[in-house]
């Protein structure tokens, strides 16, 4: 049975909510032309709503059900404590424009989070305002732009971006008004130093680098890259999506980055919500700090109070208010519970898990870059003796084994990429199960490829026709016209 659309459950006159009676005189309504006559929303009861969305939820797969090794997404367990913390009335029922004396708790939490991110990254300032990773990128790139502009270095309009980068990096660069230059990767999965040298010039504003990169590899020439870019007058932007490999292992600022975004919704365990909300704070070194978006939280040492303040040459605000506060609560709770030692263990176990799985799976599928990985690794879904099988088929078949597929077709430089990030919250048993499933699927591909082509077999729906969806756009429910 497939679940109806909420509108299909509607019946005229049905109600889902009770509201207080009007306790003041009715005011006259303005000119009828300003008012709407029809509000075509559904009419359903509370029980309809609950059943509908509970049933929908059961059609979904989440970390709370099983392993979710979606590469680049750090789908770790989301501690339940954090959900409770974020829902405390004193956090959830607070207005952003209250007098600061009435929100000292919120401000102190933000301040402590800024400090913790600084401690982990080595940056000298952090803005919590950006709402997600890509938002942090735009912020960072605009910050770099503002820096150059402030120095009169206005010709710097190029951003170097490796071919392994996430699509948001080029897109963020475009939004900033700059132009991207793609750099090749070498056969060990590093940025090609030759290609880098070839593109350095006084038009280079900076470089956007993900490290460990999207192959899960720590660039072997990282310090050298940073030196070269800096020598050319450029700045290093860090895409911190892969920070889960580095907590207590290395500080990005010491690795040569000038500005970087964090993903609280990856590294710091806040739930991804089926597509957000995330949170993408940006850290910067002392030269760039004054350009960060604000307001930031500062501490008035004399009074012991916390206040909001705009950095001196801020690029401006990148959204309303102060950022994704309820996400920050969760991330702070996580950092506070684990402490320095716990966070380092997070990265150690994340990297251990990835290497363990890689050591097993490289015997099952091609591993284009065969060297120790960090928190994730990328296999190629090309199976000997099964030329028709694509990475997508393997992924869909994994669904039948009850685990979420890896990321497909990213990074672009690996053909039929299967990007696997187990995260530290998976146990050895869980990894062994995954390895076993993939091994079995590869065998199936060779003997019964139909099993893969027709997969998934056990999901709530069979394989969906994405081409049809794009050709014949149906983006909203509409009543079927009465015949």
């Amino acid at each position, binding site marked *: 049975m497939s679940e109806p659309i909420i509108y299909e459950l509607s019946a005229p006159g049905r109600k889902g909510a009770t509201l207080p009676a009007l306790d003041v005189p009715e005011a006259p309504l303005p000119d009828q032309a300003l008012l709407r006559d029809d509000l075509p929303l559904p009419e359903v009861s*509370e029980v309809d709503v609950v059943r509908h969305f509970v049933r929908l939820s059961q059609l979904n797969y989440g970390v709370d059900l099983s392993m979710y090794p979606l590469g680049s997404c750090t789908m770790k367990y989301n501690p339940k404590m954090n959900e409770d913390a974020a829902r405390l009335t004193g956090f959830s029922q607070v207005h952003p424009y209250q007098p600061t004396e009435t929100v000292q708790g919120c401000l102190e939490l933000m301040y402590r989070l800024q400090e913790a991110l600084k401690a982990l990254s080595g940056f000298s300032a952090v803005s919590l305002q950006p709402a997600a990773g890509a*938002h942090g990128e735009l912020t960072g790139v605009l910050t770099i732009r503002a820096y150059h502009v402030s120095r009169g270095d206005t010709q710097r309009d190029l951003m170097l971006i490796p071919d392994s980068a996430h*699509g948001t990096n080029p*897109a963020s660069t475009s939004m900033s008004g700059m132009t991207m230059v793609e750099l090749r990767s070498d056969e060990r999965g590093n940025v090609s130093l030759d290609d880098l040298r070839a593109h350095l010039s006084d038009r280079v504003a900076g470089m956007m680098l993900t490290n460990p990169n999207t192959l899960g590899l720590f660039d072997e020439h990282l310090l050298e890259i940073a030196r070269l870019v800096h020598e050319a007058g450029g700045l290093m932007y860090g895409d911190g999506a892969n920070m889960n490999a580095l907590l207590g292992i290395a*500080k990005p600022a010491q690795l040569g980055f000038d500005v970087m975004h964090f993903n609280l919704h990856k590294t710091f365990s806040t739930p991804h919500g089926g597509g957000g909300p995330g949170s993408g704070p940006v850290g910067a070194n002392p030269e760039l700090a004054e350009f960060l978006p604000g307001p930031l939280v500062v501490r008035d040492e004399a009074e012991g109070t916390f206040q909001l303040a705009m950095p001196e040459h801020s690029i401006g605000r990148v959204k309303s208010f102060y950022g994704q506060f309820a996400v920050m609560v969760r991330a702070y709770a996580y950092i506070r519970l684990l402490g320095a030692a716990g966070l380092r263990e997070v990265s150690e176990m994340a990297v251990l898990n990835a290497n363990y799985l890689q050591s097993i799976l490289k015997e099952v599928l091609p591993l284009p870059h065969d060297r120790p990985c960090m928190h994730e690794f990328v296999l190629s879904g090309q199976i000997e003796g099964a030329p028709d099988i694509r990475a997508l088929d393997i992924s869909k078949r994994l669904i039948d084994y009850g685990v979420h597929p890896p990321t497909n077709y990213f990074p672009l430089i690996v053909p039929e990429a299967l990007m696997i990030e187990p995260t530290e919250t998976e146990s050895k048993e869980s990894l062994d199960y995954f390895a076993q499933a993939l091994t079995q699927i590869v065998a199936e591909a060779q003997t019964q490829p139909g099993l893969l082509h027709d997969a998934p077999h056990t999901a709530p729906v069979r394989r969906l026709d994405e081409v049809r969806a794009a050709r014949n756009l149906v983006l909203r429910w509409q009543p079927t016209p009465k015949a």
Partner: protein
Amino acid sequence: MAYVPHTPADVDAMLTRIGVSSLAELFATVPAEVRFPPIDLPGPQSELETLQELQALAERNIDVTHTPWFLGAGAYQHWVPSVVNHILLRSEFYTAYTPYQPEISQGTLQAIFEYQSLICDLTGMEVSNASHYDGATALAEAVIMAQSAARGARRRVVMSGAVHPEYRATVRTYTQGMALEIVGEDDPQRPLADLATLVDDQTSCLIVQSPDFFGRIADLRGLADIVHAHKALFIVVVDPISLGLFQAPGALGADLVVGEGQSLGSALSFGGPYLGFLATRQELVRRMAGRLVGETIDTDGKRGFVLTLSTREQHIRREKATSNICSNEGLNALAAAVYLSTLGKSGLRQVAELCYHRAHYAAQAIAALPGYEVALTAPFFDEFVVTCPRPVADINAALWHDHGIIGGYDLGQPFPGMERQMLVCVTEMNHRPQIDRFVAALQEVAR
């Protein structure tokens, strides 16, 4: 250690399989000179202690549920039915990623499809995307869409000064590298007919807000024609709750409708996470930023939902994408879908009416106070401007310290010169006794 399931025996077995002798060896590629730096953070602590610490921080804030409250200005206290949070706590929803694997993500996908449908119906538009970070960034993206629709050939943006100041600031931040000329903001009191005269053939879009930042319902009739005569786009920023009562911008010729969806079931949470919505006309869909969910069928012919038109997005189009947005506000969009389903046709209208009538009751009562003035001529929804006998900062301090009331928004903050103007917000959460108490307190603190 918490959240890590590894036993010492597991770690040993895994290291052996990998072929290294210690955890440290796994990090050999990290330059030795910066490897394993000391981290200046406190040690681990238990869940109990952590939650107690957070509870103590939370209790250092004054919260809306314990205080009469008249603050809006872009973030609103509205009633959220209990069902909303119960659905948000379904961990199949909140512990999922963006639905890249549709076969095991039908829950998220259908909910977003429903969200898109609800936003279309509410705004009177044809297409809605899956969300933006908030109202401000939705507006910035709408401006960029307008640029794109004009193929980058038009550099002028006409924006009303009565659009939320933080939205206007965000538009400026987003577009700072795009060499745009943004005009019209200088006088927030400028009549819209006047503002429209700034639209010319170099203009990509006209942006107005209704109810505007000062609470006034704008009469949008005729504006679309002027804008369209110049082949520009008409962008309207709205308060979704007001649409329970007031005309949908789609019926008034808007090309893009954006706004803050926090009121639709998201908590105030000191400013975020909120929900930007963006809806437009069918013909602009390929220029649209953000995710879209579309209906399709599976191999058995059964209805299902997928992310669609991803060719607009950065995974495929990279530097040519319509936007860089990737993670958006999925869970807030789910909240909005649950909220709008629960309230429904009659409930949303009732909420809007409660806001309207209570705000007018309050406005009239305040207007009758000596020393206070309220402009009661222009139609308004649930916010209105009160001219106070003293600076709002002083009035608010007295309201809070002497009466335990959080007053309205101090318009002097964003608008130098308006230090005696207070933006008062009254919603269905402010019952009559609370309003009466506020009015009485205002009288007392008048001097």
